[in-house]
């Protein structure tokens, strides 16, 4: 594990092993994720990068027959320790999925959903939260006249930014993104990449991407996964210019994957 800058860790993963039934999906992964930086997870299909992402907010719990060994430390606590409040954890760690999944409600209600679930009822407070989230997600100007319309009437790119706004409305520390632009066109992709870079100052971002150019463009650190193992983790510049591991080099130069 090498770090170019002296940044505090948001996550410290130690000896993480994950099994789906008989499949050993993550093999002894240990890494630290830097705070307030963008960390990209790259690797060929099926290498375990999405699985690893989901261990950070315990969304793997929803998959039957999933067994986790090892520790994931977030804020000094192992989130896999028994008795962990998973709901609270997911409030602090937000997630954006590959395919935009807005709820069948209005734009406003989508963004206000999380806060309302927390018990916030005051109209003014909710409005403030929604406005701020939509602005931070660079969506406000496009939807400010359509707040009460169904979220499903937005374009794909707008829906994805809505999902980002929805996550931001919870004021999380971390935002996990699972291939957020793979279902979008290039223009929408560019907008979201711009958004991600801007969010960096307030949030820790971990993004799974199969697009190496994207990783090179927007991330500070990159982790390369292969067959469930973390092969190499370093500053993005280093990974893409002179990687230490020949396998990393093979993937980056397109020899496989």
């Amino acid at each position, binding site marked *: 594990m090498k770090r170019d800058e002296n940044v505090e860790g948001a996550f410290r993963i130690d000896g993480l092993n994950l099994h789906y039934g008989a499949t050993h999906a993550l093999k002894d992964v240990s890494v630290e994720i830097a705070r307030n930086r963008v960390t990209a997870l790259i690797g060929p299909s099926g290498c375990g990068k999405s699985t690893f992402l989901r261990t950070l907010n315990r969304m793997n719990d929803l998959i039957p027959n999933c067994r986790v060994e090892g520790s994931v430390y977030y804020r000094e606590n192992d989130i896999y320790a028994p008795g962990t409040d998973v*709901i609270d954890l997911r409030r602090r760690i937000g997630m954006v999925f590959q395919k935009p999944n807005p709820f069948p*409600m209005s734009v406003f209600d989508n963004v206000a959903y999380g806060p309302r679930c927390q018990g916030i009822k005051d109209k003014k407070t909710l409005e403030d939260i929604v406005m701020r989230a939509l602005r931070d997600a660079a969506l406000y100007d496009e939807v400010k006249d359509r707040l009460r319309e169904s979220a499903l009437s937005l374009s794909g790119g707008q829906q994805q930014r809505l999902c980002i706004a929805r996550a931001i409305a919870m004021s999380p520390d971390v935002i996990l993104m699972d291939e957020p632009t793979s279902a979008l066109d290039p223009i929408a992709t560019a907008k979201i990449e711009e958004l991600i870079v801007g969010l960096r100052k307030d949030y820790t971002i971990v993004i799974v991407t199969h697009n190496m150019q994207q990783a090179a463009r927007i991330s500070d650190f990159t982790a390369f996964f292969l067959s469930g193992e973390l092969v190499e983790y370093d500053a993005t510049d280093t990974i893409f210019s002179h990687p230490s591991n020949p396998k990393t080099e093979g993937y980056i130069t397109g020899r496989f994957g």
Partner: protein
Amino acid sequence: MTDRTLLSKMKDTAGGRRSDRIAKTVFLSAALLSASFVFLIAGIVLIRGALPFLTDNDGLGSVDLLRFLTADVWLVGATFASNLYGVGYLILSTLFIAFLSLSVSFPIGVLTALFIAKVAPKPLAKVLRTVVETLASIPSIVFGLFGAGVILKLVYDFSMSIGYQSKGGNSILATALVLALMTIPTITSISEVAIRSVDKALEHGSLALGASKTQTHFKVVLAAAKSGIFTSAILGIGRALGEATAVSLVAGGRRSGVSFDLLDTTATLTTMMLEGLKETTGLDYDIRFSVGLVLLVVILITNLTLNAIKRKVGSVHVKA
């Protein structure tokens, strides 16, 4: 050539072979016959039902349509000596009881569907699903028998305990309860399908935001299944409006006056149609077709209205 093209070619040249032509005609007639029954039924009810309003009814005079639709009394005067029939109060009672029973069966049915689809562990869900299916296959006469044997007694005891003398338990309450029991399986099975077809991505999205499972179920899953759930309610109401023998065993055969008092006896369009079936001719007999016509119209209007509401509800967003 793919099989499909081969088949469609075959469909066209089926006319070539004589046996095929005969067979096609036979099957076509069967299909046409089947499709024609809906018109036969509509036509019969319409014509026979309209007769009392249009003919002299053997000297009794034609029945006044407006009075028929708005009157508060089933029959003013003696049978076979009067044309003063009225179903106004029956229309109101029928609708009231149907929606009353829905107010019981809808929440119970939808929550049971949610339980089976999302909350219950797999083996329990299977058992409960079988229970609901079995309940759905029990014929209505058995529900009526159960109502007459058990529910009437319960309602009677209940009414006595609060100091109200009910007529042997025959009441709006008993009728609504029996209808509710009969419609819960319909609502549960259709809602369950709707709930299960909600995209898992929506559920995951909600959970990832830190909502609890229960919050996810009620705020997202049920909202996303809105359309199918509403359909189940429409079908449930349809069944409640058309139920005859079960209702007649617990209603009380009220001959006049609308009542919204739960412990009062009542009657519906269908129960009135069943009574007096001993006669074989005359106005008292023919008038049942008119009542049947009114029933069909009521069901049609209710269906159209609820479907219109469903389309509106589908486009309006639900508050989280």
